[in-house]
């Protein structure tokens, strides 16, 4: 494949099934038929959950019906809410990428194709549960009702930015909505979520913590620490690995997915590991709910692998056509989460193409309106700017003398520069 030098090397180097110019190939993916995987009681021993770590929990079948023991039997109204959240997430993402292209944002990362991972999980949890997202969980922000304007102001680092201009775009947070601050450092939130859950247990509170990371990031030490501490202290935590097959240019095989599933790491530590169709809204909802119920009733943590696909670029700095076939997304065997939930609702007689178009238009208008409002609070290059003095706040709770002095120096410097 590569025109490289002759080698005596016996090193095994995982390779993706297809590189640019080659036909996409997802035959490596182990799929279970919809409805085929058993659903143990939430009180079951982790030993009785072993098949779930390599099977694939699926609810929606090819005819768009909900089948099997994991069917969460949601009301149509709830499904419609889920669809709305996912669609809003997608439209928001699309608009923001366009804004970045137009030079209005320094950077953006979208979650296209992975909306169910966040939205279904978010809906399966309770408001008091604490979420520790990664940068690709905007659906959680949407589910928790964060106003789009607020999210956009963060993206713009403008005068209404919740981060006061300190973070890269997409690194949202909301203390009120129990959405933890997103870190640029991969996987660090994993043991933090476990610690939060340990504290909930220590205080005798019944909230659970949930956290998400990419399959690539699961290679970091923090992933191991989180599984270990969750197991040792039976912390009420849900540890989600979003296996979207890619980590920038690197295939999931390089992250350790070649030999076994990521979910299988759970049982190794005595935690249930659930491997879930991440593009199946109902499956994600059901699995999250199972893990949350288990945690809330003292059963401890669960590892969930969400099998999905990063349909877009890693970020606005990335061009995936350099490292994977251009048409790979079209061959992803588990479809599109929005489309699948839409078809399910149509099959239930609770939705239609017309309603979908109307909703789409409504939501897109909402996004556009929010953007128009957000930019009035400033953009990268225009309009009001955050007060520069803010730069020195929040390093410590109270401004120490040395930062007070630096604040003065900066004022002097700006004055001198004119």
């Amino acid at each position, binding site marked *: 494949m590569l025109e490289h030098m002759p080698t005596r090397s016996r090193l095994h180097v995982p390779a993706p099934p297809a590189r640019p110019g080659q036909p996409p190939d997802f035959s490596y993916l182990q799929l279970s038929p919809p409805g085929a995987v058993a659903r143990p009681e939430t009180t079951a021993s982790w030993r009785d959950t072993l098949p779930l770590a390599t099977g694939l929990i699926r609810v929606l079948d090819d005819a768009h019906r909900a089948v099997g023991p994991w069917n969460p039997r949601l009301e149509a109204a709830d499904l419609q809410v889920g669809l709305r959240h996912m669609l809003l997430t997608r439209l928001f993402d699309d608009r923001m990428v366009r804004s970045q292209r137009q030079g209005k944002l320094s950077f953006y990362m979208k979650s296209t194709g992975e909306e169910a991972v966040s939205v279904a999980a978010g809906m399966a949890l309770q408001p008091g549960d604490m979420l520790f997202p990664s940068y690709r969980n905007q659906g959680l922000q949407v589910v928790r009702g964060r106003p789009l304007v607020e999210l956009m102001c963060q993206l713009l680092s403008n005068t209404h930015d919740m981060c006061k201009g300190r973070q890269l775009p997409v690194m949202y*947070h909301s203390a009120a909505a129990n959405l*933890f601050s997103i870190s640029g450092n991969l996987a*660090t939130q994993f043991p933090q979520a476990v610690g939060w859950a340990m504290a909930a247990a220590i205080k005798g509170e019944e909230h659970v913590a949930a956290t998400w990371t990419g399959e690539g990031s699961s290679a970091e030490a923090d992933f191991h*620490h989180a599984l270990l*501490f969750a197991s040792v202290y039976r912390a009420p935590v849900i540890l989600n690995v979003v296996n979207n097959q890619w980590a920038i240019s690197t295939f999931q095989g390089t992250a350790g997915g070649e030999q076994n599933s990521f979910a299988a790491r759970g049982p190794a530590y005595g935690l249930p590991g659930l491997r879930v169709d991440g593009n199946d809204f109902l499956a994600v909802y059901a699995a999250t709910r199972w893990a949350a119920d288990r945690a809330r009733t003292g059963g401890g943590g669960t590892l969930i692998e969400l099998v999905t696909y990063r349909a877009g670029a890693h970020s606005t700095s990335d061009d995936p056509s350099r490292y994977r076939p251009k048409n790979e997304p079209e061959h992803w065997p588990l479809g599109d989460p929005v489309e699948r939930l839409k078809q399910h609702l149509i099959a239930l007689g609770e939705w239609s193409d017309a309603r979908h178009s109307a909703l789409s238009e409504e939501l897109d208008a909402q996004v556009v309106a929010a953007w128009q409002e957000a930019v009035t609070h400033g953009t990268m290059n225009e309009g009001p700017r955050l007060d520069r003095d803010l730069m020195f706040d*929040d390093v410590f709770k109270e401004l120490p*003398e040395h930062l007070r002095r630096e604040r003065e120096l900066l004022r002097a410097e700006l004055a001198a520069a004119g």
Partner: protein
Amino acid sequence: MAKMNMIQALNSAMDIAMARDPNVVVLGQDVGFFGGVFRCTDGLQRKYGEHRVIDTPIAEGGIIGAAIGMGVNGLRPVAEVQFADYVYPAYDQIVSELARLRYRSAGDFHAPVTVRMPCGGGIRGGQTHSQSPEVLFAHVCGLKVAMPSNPYDAKGLLIGAIEDDDPVILLEPKRLYNGPFDGDPNKPAVPWSTHAKGEVPTDHYTVPFGRAEIVRAGTQVTIIAYGTMVHVAEAAAQALKLDAEIIDVRSLVPLDVDTLCNSVCKTGRCVIAHEATRFAGFGAELAATVMEHCFWNLEAPIQRVAGWNTPYPHAFEWEYFPGQARVALALKAVMEPK
């Protein structure tokens, strides 16, 4: 008031903090049933339960990661790292997370975590039980950093650290756990009970961050030191019969620049002493700051006394340690420059 060594003082600090606030928890390797390899947490688990004094796996990164999450959820975790030499696996969680959480979330989240760790040499611990990594924390904005030189300060700083809403790194010079140490390993050990700073209030009090202490007032030269080196400096100055002003930095971040610089501007001479490796050590910051503020008053170049730029070798502990002889040479150099 009671006689306490530094271990008892630290223990008392945690005891008082735990009694006053049910959200204070202690975690670390061997801290629970056993009470810590240096016995700093002795008796706390029996008193407060195994849910507040938690034995952890041997994973410093996991300990600090979990402590941050606990802090976010309203607890005040006090994490023990068994030796400062073993803090590096937790360095990412400390630098990238603990130190930056408040800033990146614009004050909406914070984790009031205290990280305690025994540091320094002098107990034949070799290269991996003797390090003084304070500058590796002092450079990272968002952390408060302190190193006590005596039981009184140790207790007051630790209670203050636990009650502080900012993260604090507390480095405990293990050679001082049982008594003051003037750098001479051949002298019989002296217990804290013979020292004024071994007299410690049994109740609650704090030693404020950001305030150095003038341990001894003097006119001829200022010695700026912290941890074990405070005692070595005192002995060296005394041996040379110098009227030295000796300042115990105590709080490295925030730094009490005024106390330090007022003294040097007054004496015109300055020696800075720490046990850590010299190159790019905390002494460099002290020297640069003092030089900037006291330039016109300085009568000689500031001298730094420190560990050599090598690891701390088992067989050459006392050749590595910046003892009285090394301090004396520096004092002579500033008293009679060139």
